[in-house]
């Protein structure tokens, strides 16, 4: 009697839950209602893809030098328009001979940014110092010129993606420290500082950005002494930075409130003063916790840069809109093509930021386990 007990081999899963058909039965046709929904959704999807595919590829024009290329009987996208204006969309009216300067700034910015974003690469501190210290000065000198033998380029000639990135990056870089200060101020025990911070935050959060930009472009000159005047781009930068710092402050305040009181007390018991408690114990934890919120604010800020076109600056959307007035490209499809192009560029930036935020969130949350 040496027979050991042999379990029966497991029966195969029923055919209606395995394979492609099983997957479809579970995920697409589980109930009669599901069948109906799936059919309606599939039809709607087919129709949408069909329209988009015809517009973007089958009926589109791909080459040509003026509007005649885009006046077919059934006309889809007018891609030659984008091709012809591409330089304008990226640099605005920046003189063609000087565009290498913008490219160089893009390149150095990119080279500096990538190692900052990839967690495995070290030298973070040196990298941050470079990106916040020498790089902005270099970028400023390169872009405006007027020194070291570079031709001066007025900011009124800047445009396109260049202005979008300048406004967005300045706003992002300025709003984070300002937001941290405002958030700390709002939680301060000093009543006057606290009320001032609350007033600032609530006023800027209560009004639309467009009124802040109007204020920056129409009202700010009235607030300055005679003869003192800023560049329009500069005024918009100030407006955008103040506006987004108020939103940033509220995001960071959420993080500060989530830090248990014991952390403050423990740090104080170690003999740390206010700034050390804040800088070494509280802020690192609070900022880590609020990364999704901070990136969301960045994404919002990036999208909001389009508003500068209303006060007369030519960001990417502004310059696309401006080139619709070019009579040599006036076709019924020019508008939609231009908007789709601009939307795609904005989408790539925003989507990349949101994915990066999810990546960082996952990475940091595993640290805590």
């Amino acid at each position, binding site marked *: 009697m040496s027979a050991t007990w042999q379990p029966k081999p497991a029966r195969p899963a029923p055919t209606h839950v395995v394979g492609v058909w099983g997957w479809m039965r*579970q*995920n*697409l046709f*589980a109930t009669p209602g*599901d069948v109906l*929904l*799936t059919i309606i*959704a*599939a039809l*709607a*999807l087919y129709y949408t893809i069909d329209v988009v595919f015809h517009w973007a590829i089958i009926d589109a024009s791909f080459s040509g030098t003026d509007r005649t290329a885009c006046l077919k009987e059934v006309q889809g996208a007018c891609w030659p328009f984008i091709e012809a204006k591409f330089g304008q969309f990226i640099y605005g009216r920046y003189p063609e001979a000087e565009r290498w300067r913008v490219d160089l700034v893009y390149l150095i910015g990119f080279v500096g940014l990538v190692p900052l974003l990839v967690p495995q690469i070290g030298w973070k501190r040196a990298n941050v110092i470079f990106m916040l210290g020498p790089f902005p000065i270099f970028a400023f000198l390169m872009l405006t010129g007027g020194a070291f033998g570079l031709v001066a380029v007025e900011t009124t000639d800047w445009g396109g993606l260049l202005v979008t990135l300048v406004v967005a990056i300045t706003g992002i870089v300025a709003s984070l420290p300002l937001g941290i200060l405002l958030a700390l101020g709002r939680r301060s*025990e*000093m*009543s*006057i*500082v606290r009320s*001032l911070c609350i007033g600032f935050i609530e*006023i800027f*959060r*209560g*009004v*639309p*950005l*467009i*009124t802040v930009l*109007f*204020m920056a472009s*129409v*009202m700010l*000159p*009235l*607030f*300055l*002494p*005679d003869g003192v005047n800023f560049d329009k781009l500069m005024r918009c930068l100030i407006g955008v930075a103040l506006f987004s710092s108020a939103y940033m402050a509220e995001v960071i305040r959420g993080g500060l409130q989530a830090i248990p009181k014991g952390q403050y007390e423990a740090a104080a018991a170690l003999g740390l003063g206010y700034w050390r408690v804040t800088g070494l114990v509280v802020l690192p934890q609070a900022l880590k916790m609020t990364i999704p919120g901070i990136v969301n604010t960045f*994404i919002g800020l990036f*999208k*909001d*840069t*389009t*508003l500068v*076109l*209303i006060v007369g600056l030519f960001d990417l*959307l502004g310059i696309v*809109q401006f080139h*619709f007035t070019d009579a040599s490209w006036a076709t*019924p499809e020019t*508008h*939609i093509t231009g*908007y789709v192009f*601009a*939307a795609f560029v*904005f*989408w790539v930036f*925003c*989507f990349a930021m*949101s994915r990066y935020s999810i990546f960082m969130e996952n990475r940091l949350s595993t640290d805590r386990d």
Partner: protein
Amino acid sequence: MSRRDALLQLVTLALVVAGIGWLIANVADNLDRQNIASGFGFLNERAGFGISQTLIDYDEDDSYRQVLIIGLLNTLLVSVLGIIFASVLGFLLGVGRLSRNWLISKIAMVYIEIFRNVPLLLQIMFWYFGVLRNLPSPRQAINIGDVMFLSNRGFALPSVSFMDGAGFYGLALLAIIVTAIGLRRRARKLFLATGQIVAFWKPLGIVSLAVLLLAGAVAGLPFAADIPSLRGFNFRGGMSVIPEFVALLLALSLYTAAFIAEIVRAGIMSVYQGQREAAAALGLSHNRALSLVVIPQSLRVIIPPLTSQYLNLTKNSSLAVAIAYPDIVSVFAGTTLTQVGQAIEIIFITMMVYLLLSLLTSWAMNRYNARIALVGQN
């Protein structure tokens, strides 16, 4: 508070006061030199320009005060309708995103990722300049069943005009609403006291039918449909909706819906699976479990961020200025500012109006939030 802190505060206050004083002195100086008038007297002056959409009577001889009110009403109109559409669509998308149906869930995801990552201003301009202004002229308007016409001048829709006796139907409607509220209250009271579920829709339907028949017997049918028709270069009759309004409403609703969808999804996911299982174990049907257990709890998570989306939508309606929809920023901080030149007063008033709207919305939503928070804790 330590002495150092007190000193720090005094210094801050002094700096802020000095800064504000300096700004005011500059303003006074600048206004004086540029001969710009100050004060709010301009509100009573004649505006002298036309507005394309006015909810109340207006003509060019009216004052800037009237312009302000018209702009505010237009802002409110597009915001309220936008909030309603965005909520409905956002709720559907959020539920769709969690659907077991793979196709529905993916479609909702793609929608959300596209619409919330493209600037709202771009979307507004896309719908306005790209789509609506590209529609055919009124003569070749897209004809929907001979009653609705879509053209680049806007949408011509049929409207209903009321004749004598329509007031009876108004009374009937009032009676139905009162009955509905009464029935609801009674049903709730009985439910809480005895757990008995009382019929609601059936008695309401019977009462409604009876009241409407009564109104019909007294007043007949005092309505006439007013259908738009092409006269010359545009449509006459019916109701005309300007394309600026359609574009703005469409863009605001589609954009905000993507954000609301994510909020709804997070809210529903925040309710523990165990709650659903417990509800099922108590014998509640799927729908009753949703409406009695899951949704009340998820609402507590949903309401606060939803409030800020509503506020965002209201503030974002100011982008109307880009397509010249006559909202408050467009007609008041835009046209009026250009004509009068009193930037400080006008931008101050505009900002105050938005601050007030924000405060009112937060107040209303906080009250609602307080109510459901209490219900949740019982």
